[in-house]
């Protein structure tokens, strides 16, 4: 019993994480996509991709899946800040990460049971390990699949091009590049 999370801690955490269901992905909103997805929806499919693909690349499935689930949690406090446009950096990644780090620490409130998740988030942010780089690729693959779907649903092709450019930056010549190449063929 002593190791179990208290009901209050669990409910606080659940509600904090639940905020992401209502945080709209800013990039789509700015491009005028009708009814754009939330950060939680993006995380859901990123996690599914992680579950399916991690074993195929001989990576620790559990670790990659958990990292995919926590990678955008910090946005519950600050929102989805655009810091890149296509391949160009337009904002301060460092400040965004500083605020998100604060949010993650507040969310997990120094509870020793949750330190693993704080560390996974930090690992993702540092982009040094194979798992962190893999989740970054999954993050971008999910984004560009969404761009493809929005275009199919009638969104303006040109206005969505910057998402393809951004995906190119992270996926070209990388492990998951083959899925991106396939998507590019479908786009034509």
């Amino acid at each position, binding site marked *: 019993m002593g190791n179990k999370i208290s009901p209050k801690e669990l409910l606080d955490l659940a509600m904090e994480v639940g905020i992401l269901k209502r945080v709209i992905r800013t990039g789509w909103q700015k491009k005028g996509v009708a009814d754009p997805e939330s950060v939680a929806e993006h995380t859901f499919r990123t996690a599914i991709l992680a579950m399916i693909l991690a074993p195929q690349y001989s990576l620790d499935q559990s670790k990659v899946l958990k990292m995919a689930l926590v990678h955008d949690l910090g946005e519950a406090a600050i*929102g989805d800040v655009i810091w890149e446009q296509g391949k160009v950096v337009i904002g301060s990644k460092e400040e965004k990460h500083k605020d998100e780090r604060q949010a993650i620490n507040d969310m997990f409130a120094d509870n020793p049971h949750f330190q693993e998740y704080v560390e996974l988030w930090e690992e993702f942010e540092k982009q040094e390990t194979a798992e962190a780089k893999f989740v970054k690729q999954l993050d971008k693959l999910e984004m560009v699949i969404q761009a493809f779907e929005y275009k199919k649903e009638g969104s303006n092709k040109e206005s969505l091009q910057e998402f393809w450019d951004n995906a190119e930056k992270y996926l070209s010549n990388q492990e998951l590049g083959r899925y991106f190449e396939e998507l590019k063929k479908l786009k034509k």
Partner: protein
Amino acid sequence: MTFSNKLKEARRSANLSQKQLAEKLNLSEKTISAYEMERAIPPVPTLEKIAKITGQPINFFMNGDEGKVTLNDIAEKLDIIMSELKKLNGK
């Protein structure tokens, strides 16, 4: 009026700099700048804090016509109405 303009207006009405608002929210100045440059919209709990700090009703920041209506809002709507009327006349 866009969210970013509403935030700027509310912050200035409360006599706060971006830095001061950032400190009150425990966020970086760059994040406030991102909100005012339309590079992000704060989540509802953060929005509630902004409303409290700036002394504005939360509806002021939400979409729709609730909250304060400015002359710019009215002008924008008039433009849309005029444009629709012109289309109807053309038919």
